[in-house]
């Protein structure tokens, strides 16, 4: 038994390192858990991308849940996410609101022209001030906001088919069950 002790200790260390490696592949190390989760979304008042004279506020969107998707034409991974949103958009069960982040409107429109426009509504935050209130620090990021304006789920990084099936759809289902 005494002879085995160092070997057991070694195997414990191997298991610990193995767990560390496994754990780091299981989650995005750059993702910061949002303190805004399950709290009211911050108030905002942003111009529409296609009609910049019309403003959209948080109050305008209350009453029905929506998925706020932060994207930009300069964001490479948004191009990865886009086909997933286009395919899933109509079947999501919530409105899809595009949040154009720190982008020149002309670039954003060209990008949407090339990649397609799955959004029910598009708002633009060119200076990026409102995004700070949302705790946005890059793109893409997505917020699921319920009818009362509470953030129910946040995803940092692109929505892949896997994220869509395992996280987003269950989150939407749970939310709709509670407040249809």
């Amino acid at each position, binding site marked *: 038994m005494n002879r085995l002790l*160092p070997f057991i200790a070694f195997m414990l260390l191997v298991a610990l390192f193995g767990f560390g490696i496994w754990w780091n592949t299981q989650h995005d190390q*750059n993702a910061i858990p949002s*303190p805004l989760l399950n709290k009211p979304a911050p108030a905002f008042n942003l111009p529409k991308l296609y009609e910049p004279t019309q403003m959209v506020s948080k109050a305008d969107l209350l009453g029905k849940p929506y998925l706020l998707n932060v994207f930009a034409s300069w964001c490479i991974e948004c191009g990865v996410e886009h086909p997933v949103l286009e395919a899933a958009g109509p079947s999501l069960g919530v409105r899809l609101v595009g949040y154009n982040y*720190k982008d020149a409107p002309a670039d954003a429109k060209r990008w949407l022209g090339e990649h397609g426009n799955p959004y029910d509504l598009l708002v633009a935050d060119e200076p990026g001030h409102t995004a700070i209130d949302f705790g946005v620090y890059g793109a893409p990021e997505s917020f699921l906001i319920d009818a009362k304006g509470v953030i129910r789920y946040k995803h940092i*990084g692109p929505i892949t088919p896997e994220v869509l099936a395992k996280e987003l759809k269950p989150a939407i289902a749970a939310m709709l069950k509670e407040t249809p």
Partner: protein
Amino acid sequence: MRLSSCGSGFSRDALGEPRQKASRLKPLPQGALLRLLLVALLAFTGLVHAQAIEPMPFASHAQELRFQHLTRQLRCPMCQNETLADSNAPIARDLRNQIFQMMQQGKSDEQIKQYLVDRYSNYVLYDPPLNPGTWLLWFGPLLILMGGAGVVWMAIRKRDRGGRASPTIDSRSSNNGDDW
């Protein structure tokens, strides 16, 4: 990585050019080449600083020092190994601007930190506060140290008792120790 660059991207440009020059003037003695490289390195550090800390219209030198002190205690949410003072990520620039604006409004360091924590969680603090969520972070190492001390203490006690009861067993076990 969601954004294409965390750093300035200057390192290659700044170092590359002098290097090319050096190779074109090939018959340079080694000392001169070294000097050229050193000059290039110096120029490179200057460039990075000029880019990372863009000039801001501070009300006073004291305020500038306060700004620098504060941004060095805060972590960039995008490039998590960089301070807000050092990072070139777009979000770091936006947050530096936000901090600058809040300073002009007379906000205290504590208020500014709280503003950022409310949006980006404790991740932005290099010195995380002591609360139930961070107990493991603060006391975890101490627990491990105490566990190790416990193991050592038990081993010593066991050896002491074994030594008094039958010294032959003790010497045999310590021989085993040498074998490994």
